[in-house]
């Protein structure tokens, strides 16, 4: 009954989404306020309906209702409780439902935090948002019904894919989806601006907090996914340039560019059309990512099923929204008021270069991801484009970008003085060169790591220099520091922190070149060298888990005779799916990690093992956390807070009216 209720709620949400996309839009054209105001309650109700539907599916999973196909295929009565909840989105149907839930949630957020926005902008934006919801709800109901029943019901389910039975599943997809789908809000506002033909700095103030919110979620989601892949796949890698990973990186790059260009638009009324274009692009790339992952064009851990019908449907949605938005853009962009001008050496100029480089990086990732698909479609030739391609192309673009980042921060708006900016970065340059010498002396090779790590150090120091100099400039009173700090706009603090975060991640990436890997057959009670540490298997024992059995090796880690800790890499076997999975053993020492994964055991008592020493590896994810913190700092800025911008628009509107 509850399951049918969920199904029904979903159908109702679809009908409402259609109404939401049509009625306010007509209202906006006829200047009928009553029709326009249908948008808010319908967006909120639509969210409640989808939430109800989602809860119904979660309920079916929790009580292990094996008459529901989705539960049979992805659950098991013995499955740990947390995976019964997170397992709801660990399959195609459920994850699409989560996608739509987040989409409806975003729509509801817009509806709730737009009390003072102009009726017309809200009506247009929510009607576009409703149209996106309608398309995806239709997709779920027609091709991916999560509520399908099976009769007679089996006694037991087939369990969730063991690779997904991990706390990472509870965090990674919701964050990632909030990032992906968060850009839909920006997309809807861009479409609304294009429809009404009105775009100004106030529009940028409306859009920027939503962009920041989506960007923060996407940053955390990508970092989380990367760490999950790192500890769960047993390869010691954290990024594989897998098309599915690229699918999340593309909107992130476009979103990062958008954050920066929206700043220019807000401050200087320039780059308007470009900002609109990026707003469309960020969500288009999210849709492209969804298509790549969900259509079965690719196969990977992430694509749960391949069904051509679904692929065609998503492709149609993709073409409709991206094509429609771009067509609207092509028709309307020319008629929009042209933005202001600026000198090349200025904050705006630097942000243009930033956008240029980020777009090029984004385009490269798109080409590298789609080229193999296109080539196969046209010639039948199958190729794979992997890490060597991406590293080869992206490093020569990303490193100059890293070099330019602190310089851009030092340049003032309107007109800047390059030599003055460079003077202010003296300390950063000096420390960067010293770092180069130190890294070269202590590691020597590989050169790329040495160079990248020094640039990273420069970027950390340079990113924070601006903030440091602002609060200590001609300082004669210690107490003044706090006062000064409170006077620096939070968005500037956020920028400094986020840039330093990029530096921290870059340092972690550079240090991968100094890691040690060894694949050996380990005999018990014998110490093996891994970098500066020694690893020893103390015992190999079987153990029983809730829905798996495992063999784990207890290893101790020593340095010069001192024991630093123990790890328990394991090989698990999941009975229901007859599937094995490795569980890596990881010990964090300082900022580095010792990583061990075990393979088969041999008759002579030895055990195959992959052992890694990864110096500074945690910085990769710590850097992402710092970036997100910087974003949160910016978001907390009073001028950018969601809703505030609207009040100012409303005020402006009222002023214009009087």
């Amino acid at each position, binding site marked *: 009954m509850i399951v049918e209720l969920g199904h029904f709620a979903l159908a109702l949400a679809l009908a409402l989404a259609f109404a939401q996309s049509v009625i306010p839009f007509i209202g906006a054209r006829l200047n009928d306020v009553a029709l326009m105001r249908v948008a808010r309650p319908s967006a909120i109700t639509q969210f409640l309906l989808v939430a109800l539907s989602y809860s119904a599916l979660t309920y079916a999973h929790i009580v292990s209702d094996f008459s529901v196909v989705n539960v049979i295929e992805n659950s098991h009565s013995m499955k740990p409780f947390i995976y019964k909840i997170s397992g709801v989105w660990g399959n195609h149907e459920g994850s699409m439902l989560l996608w739509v839930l987040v989409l409806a949630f975003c729509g509801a957020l817009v509806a709730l935090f737009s009390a003072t926005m102009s009726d017309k902008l809200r009506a247009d934006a929510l009607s576009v948002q409703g149209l996106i919801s309608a398309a995806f709800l239709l997709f779920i109901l027609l091709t991916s019904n999560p509520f399908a029943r099976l009769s007679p019901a089996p006694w037991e389910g087939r369990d969730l*894919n063991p*690779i997904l039975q991990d706390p990472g599943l509870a965090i990674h997809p919701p964050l990632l989806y909030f990032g992906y789908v968060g850009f839909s809000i920006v997309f809807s506002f861009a479409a609304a601006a294009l429809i009404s033909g009105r775009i100004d700095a106030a529009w940028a103030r409306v859009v920027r907090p939503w962009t920041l919110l989506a960007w923060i979620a996407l940053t955390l989601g990508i970092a989380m996914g990367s760490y999950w892949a790192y500890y769960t796949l*047993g390869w010691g890698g954290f990024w594989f340039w897998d098309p599915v990973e690229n699918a999340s990186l593309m909107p992130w790059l476009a979103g990062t560019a958008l954050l920066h260009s929206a700043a220019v638009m807000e401050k200087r009324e320039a780059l308007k059309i470009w900002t609109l274009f990026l707003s469309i692009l960020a969500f288009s790339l999210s849709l492209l990512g969804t298509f790549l992952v969900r259509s079965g064009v*690719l*196969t990977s*851990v992430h694509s749960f099923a*391949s069904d051509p019908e679904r692929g065609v449907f998503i492709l149609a949605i993709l073409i409709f929204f991206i094509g429609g938005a771009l067509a609207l853009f092509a028709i309307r962009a020319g008629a929009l008021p042209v933005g202001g*001008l600026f000198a*090349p050496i200025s904050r705006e100029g630097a942000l*243009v*270069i930033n956008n*240029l*480089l980020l777009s*090029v990086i984004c*385009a*490269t990732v798109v*080409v*590298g991801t789609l*080229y*193999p698909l296109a080539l196969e479609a046209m010639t039948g*030739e*199958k*190729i*794979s*484009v*992997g890490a*060597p*391609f991406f590293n*080869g*192309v992206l490093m*020569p*673009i990303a490193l100059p970008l890293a070099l330019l980042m602190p310089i851009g921060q030092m340049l003032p708006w309107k007109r800047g003085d390059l030599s003055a900016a460079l003077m202010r970065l003296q300390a950063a340059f000096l420390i960067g060169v010293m770092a180069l010498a130190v890294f070269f002396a202590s590691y020597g090779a590989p050169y790329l790591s040495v160079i990248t790590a020094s640039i990273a150090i420069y970027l950390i120091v340079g990113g924070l220099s601006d903030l440091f100099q602002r609060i200590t400039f001609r300082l004669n009173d210690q107490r003044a520091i706090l006062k000064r700090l409170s006077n620096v706009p939070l968005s500037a603090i956020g920028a400094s922190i986020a840039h330093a975060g990029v530096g921290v991640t870059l340092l972690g990436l550079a240090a991968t070149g100094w890691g040690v890997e060894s*694949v*050996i*057959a380990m005999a018990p009670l014998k110490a093996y060298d891994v970098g500066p540490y020694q690893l020893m298997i103390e015992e190999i024992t079987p153990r029983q888990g809730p829905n798996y059995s495992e063999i784990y090796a207890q290893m101790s880690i020593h340095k010069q005779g001192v024991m630093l800790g123990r790890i328990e890499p394991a*090989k698990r076997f999941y009975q229901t*799916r*007859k*599937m*094995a*999975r*490795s569980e890596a053993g990881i010990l964090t020492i300082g900022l580095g990690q010792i990583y061990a*994964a075990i*393979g*088969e055991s*041999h008759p002579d008592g*030895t055990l*195959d*093992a*992959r052992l890694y020493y990864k110096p500074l590896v945690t910085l990769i994810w710590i850097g992402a956390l710092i970036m997100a913190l910087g974003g949160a700092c910016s978001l907390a800025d009073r001028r950018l807070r969601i809703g505030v911008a609207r009040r100012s628009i409303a005020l402006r509107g009222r002023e214009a009216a009087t």
Partner: protein
Amino acid sequence: MTRKSKRLTLIVGALAALGVAAGLILFALRDNIVFFYTPSELAKKNLAPGMRLRIGGLVKQGSVVKNGAQNVVFTITDKTADLAVSYTGILPDLFREAQGVVADGVMLQDGTFKADSVLAKHDEKYMPRDVADALKKQGVWQGEKK
């Protein structure tokens, strides 16, 4: 600078950046793409040894031989042609005989394949799409039971 010349500078800058990127992409594509073949396609191609390739197919029943701790020799087959593969390292959790597999590596002078990474299918339902397509092409695909 006038509005026009500024716009021109911007356009020229953007084109230059795109040009450099396109150059880098083409250069990297030439050196870094890896072609995927099945054993029978490979037999027709007559490629020079030393080229990086990905080979996909099934692990031939009874062909897996382990020499010492981590040296493995096995045969990848698409039921039309076979290819002997040698590999040193830990095989993936799901590597089994008569199951789909993809090997990355280089052809050696003696016509065998030296793999430096071996990927197995993810679960009993999933087969690398490359392998599935290759098997369909060879007409030995059993299809998904659904």
